[in-house]
C-alpha cells in the first residue's frame, strides 16, 4: 500500500514541459529521495503533490485522496515543507505555530498539547517567545518542520530541507526525518546533498528534464545501474600486497589504491561476497578492515542523468 501515489503527471509552463508523465509511489515508513539536476522538475512535482500546482495530465493520490477532485482532503493528509517558505514578520515562534494549529482546526486543550509536543520534538522549547525574524536558518527550518507536523500528516514532502544548514543542523534534521519515518510516515525528500540522502533514504526517484530516469528501492536501483559492489580492504601487509592478492581472485575488478588500503569492485551476490572474504583470509593476508562502501548516490545520479538543462 502506498501513501503517496503519483500517477503519470505532466505539467507545462508555456513551451516548457516541466514534468512529463512522472509516476512513482512512496509507502508508509519509507524515506524516498527525490533527486535530479537543477530545473529537472522536482519542485514542480512536489508542488503538484501538495495541491499548490495543478497537473495538466495525471493525478496524485495522497493517502487515497486525489489532489484534483478532493484537494482539501488531500491537504489534510500532507505536510509540505517548501524550499523557500515565508515567515510572518512581527510574529514569535509560539504565535506562528499557534496560528497554524488554529488553521488546522485544533482547539482548546488539544491545540495546547499538540503545540507542546511539536515544539519539544523539534527542540524549539527555549525559543518560543523569540521573533521569527531573529532566528538562524537552522532554527527557521526547524520551525517550518514543526509547522508541517502540527496536523500529524501521514505524508510529508520536504523540498531541500537541508539547504543552507551547517553540519550539526544537518545531522539533527536527518535524525528528525528518520524519527518521522519510524512513526510510519511516507516521506518524499529532495536534496542536492546526495550523501545526506544516501544515509537516510530507503528508496529513490531520479528525474531529469521532467522525465523519470529511474526509481525504486535504493539497493535495487543501485544494483540495476551499478551491478558491482564497492569494497575497501586494509591489511597488515600493506596496500600493494592487497592489490596483488585481489587481482588473482575471480569477480574482482577496478582495484585501486586508496589511503592505506585498496578499493575494488566485486561482482556477485551475498554468498559469493562471503566466499571472497573467506578466500582473502586463507590467502595469507591479515585484514585489518574489510568494509562495503556506502551506496553511492552521486555515482547513481551521474549514471542515470545526462546533465542536460532545460
Amino acid at each position, binding site marked *: 500500500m502506498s501513501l503517496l501515489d503519483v500517477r503519470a503527471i505532466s505539467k507545462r509552463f508555456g513551451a516548457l514541459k516541466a514534468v512529463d508523465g512522472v509516476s512513482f509511489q512512496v509507502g508508509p515508513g519509507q524515506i524516498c529521495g527525490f533527486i535530479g539536476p537543477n530545473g529537472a522538475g522536482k519542485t514542480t512535482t512536489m508542488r503538484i503533490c501538495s495541491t499548490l500546482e495543478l497537473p495538466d495530465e495525471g493525478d496524485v493520490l495522497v493517502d487515497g485522496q486525489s489532489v484534483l477532485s478532493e484537494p482539501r482532503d488531500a491537504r489534510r493528509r*500532507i505536510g*509540505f515543507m517548501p524550499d523557500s517558505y515565508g*515567515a510572518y514578520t512581527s*510574529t514569535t515562534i509560539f504565535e506562528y505555530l499557534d496560528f*497554524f494549529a488554529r488553521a488546522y482546526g485544533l*482547539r*482548546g486543550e488539544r491545540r495546547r498539547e499538540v503545540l507542546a509536543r511539536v515544539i519539544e520534538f523539534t527542540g524549539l522549547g527555549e525559543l518560543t517567545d523569540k521573533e521569527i525574524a531573529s532566528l538562524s536558518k537552522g532554527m527557521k527550518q526547524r520551525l517550518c518542520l514543526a*509547522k508541517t507536523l502540527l496536523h500529524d500528516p501521514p505524508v510529508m514532502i520536504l523540498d531541500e530541507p537541508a539547504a543552507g544548514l551547517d553540519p550539526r543542523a544537518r545531522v539533527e534534521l536527518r535524525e528528525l526525518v528518520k524519527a518521522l519515518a519510524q512513526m510510519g510516515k511516507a516521506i518524499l525528500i529532495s536534496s542536492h546533498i546526495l550523501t545526506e540522502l544516501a544515509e537516510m533514504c530507503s528508496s529513490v526517484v531520479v528525474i531529469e528534464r521532467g522525465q523519470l530516469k529511474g526509481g525504486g528501492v535504493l539497493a535495487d536501483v543501485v544494483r540495476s545501474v551499478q551491478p558491482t559492489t564497492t569494497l575497501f580492504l586494509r591489511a597488515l601487509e600493506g596496500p600493494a600486497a592487497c592489490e596483488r592478492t585481489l587481482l588473482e581472485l575471480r569477480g574482482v575488478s577496478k582495484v585501486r589504491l586508496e589511503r592505506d588500503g585498496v578499493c575494488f569492485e566485486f561482482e556477485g551476490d551475498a554468498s559469493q561476497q562471503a566466499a571472497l572474504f573467506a578466500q582473502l583470509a586463507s590467502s595469507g593476508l591479515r585484514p585489518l578492515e574489510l568494509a562495503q562502501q556506502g551506496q553511492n548516490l552521486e555515482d547513481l545520479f551521474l549514471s542515470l542523468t545526462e546533465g542536460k538543462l532545460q
Partner: protein
Amino acid sequence: MNALAAARSFDDRLNPILVKEVRQALRGRYFRTLFWLTLGVATLIGLSIVAEAGSRGANMGVGRTFFMLMNGCLFAAVLGFTPFSAFLATSAEWDENTHDLLVLSNLRPRQIVYGKLLSALVQALLYYATFGPFLVFAFLMNGVDLLSIGVLLLTSFVACATLNLLGIAMASLSPAKAPRVLLMALFGVALMMSWGFSISFATFVTYQPHELRDPMALPAIVAFVVGCLLVGGLFASLAIARLSHDEENRSSGLRALSVALVLVATVFGLWMELEFGHSEFAWGLQLAVLVPLVMLWLHFLCEPETLGRHVARHVSPRPALALLSAPFLPGGGRGAVLMALHMALGLSAVLAVRLVPGSDKTELNRALIGLALVYAYVWIYLAIPAGIASWFSPKLSRRVLTRLVIIGLVPVAVLLPPLLGLVLGIPSWLDFMHPLNPMYPLKGVISGSSFSRVEKLWLLTAALAAIVLNTPRIARGLQEVLAASRARRSRASSV
C-alpha cells in the same frame, strides 16, 4: 472558572487569520505609528480649537469646526489608513511568500478574506473608540446633533468595511509585484476620493442637519448601506475566487451575488414607486446596476467552458435541479445563461412597477423598450467577442486578452464616428449619441424618438449574431451539467 472556560471557548472559535492579523498589527510599526500620529494630530487640533473658543467664547460655529476637523482625522483613519492596511496585509501574503502556507493550512479562502476584513474592522473600532470622547465633546459644544453623529458613524463604518474589502480584493488580484504596485496606486487614489466624498457628506450633514429629517433621507441612507454591503460582497467574492484552488468553484458566489444585486434594485424600485410614486427609479436602478453587472458578465462570459473536476463531482444528481443550478455554475456558456437571466429579471422589475396602479405607463413603456435595447447592445459587445474567443484555447492569457479587447471595444465604438466626423469634416457625425453607442436607446427613452429602419436592422442582425455565436457553448454548458449529474447518479448507485 466558567467565565474562563467561556473565554477559552470563544478564543477557540475566533477566525485564525483575525487572531494572527490583530497580533501582527498591534506589534507592527504601521498601525502603532499611524494610530499615535492620528491621535496626536487630533489632540493638537482639539486643543487649539478649545483655546480659540476660550479666547473668543464658545458658539455653534466653533463646535461645528471642531466636529468637522475631528471627523476629518477619524475618516482619514477609518477610510484611509485601515483599508490601506488591509491591502498591505493581503499583499504581504504574496510578498512574504506565505500564501502557499495559507493554502496548505487548508483555511478556506472565505476564512482568509473575512479574517482580514475583521482584523481591519477591529483596528477601525479602535479608532472609533479613541475618537468617541472627541465626538461627545463636539456634541456638548452644540457643534452637531446626535442623529448626524449616528448617521455619519454608521455610513462611515459601512464604507470602511466596503473599502477594506476593495483593498483585499485588489491586493488578491495579482501575485506579481509590478501590477500590484499599480493597483496600490489606484487604490490610494480611490481612498483619497472616498475621503473627499466623506468630508463633503459630513459637511452637508453637519451644516444642514434638517435634511436628515426629510422623507427621502431614510431611503437614501438605506440605499447607501445596502449598496455598500452588496458591492462589498462582490469584492469579497472576487477575493475569495482569486484565493481559491484552480479546480474549486470560483464563480458561484459571485453569480449568486450578482442576482442579489438585481433583486435588491428591483425591490428598491418597487418600494420607491409604492411609497413615493417615483417610477423612474424602477428602470434607473436597473441601468445603475448595469455598471457592476457588465464587469461581472465580462468575467463570467470569458471563464473556461468546463466545470472543473472538483465542481463536476458536486453537481446535483437530480437533472432538474442540476439544470436550474446551471447558470450559477462556472463556465462561459453558463455565464451567457446567467446574463440572460439577469436581463429577464431587470425587464420583469420594470414590468412589475408598470403593474402598480397609478404608475406612469407611458414612461415605463418607453423605459422597457429602452432597457431591452441596452441589453441587446450588451449582448452584441460582450457575447460576440466572448463567443468567438470560446472557439480557441481557454488559456488564461487568451482570456485576459479577450477581456481587454471587450473593454477596449466599447470606447472605440463610441468614439469612432465622432472622430471620423472630425477628420472627414462631417458635422452630423460629431454627436456621441449614435447607433454604435450602447446608451443610444436611452435617447429614445428621454426624448420619445424611435430607431430608424437601418438602425433597427443593424441592431437586430448583431443581436442575432450574438445569440447564434453563443448557442453552441450554451448547449455544451448545459449538456456538461447534465452529464455531471448523470455521473454523480451512477457513482451513487455503484456505491
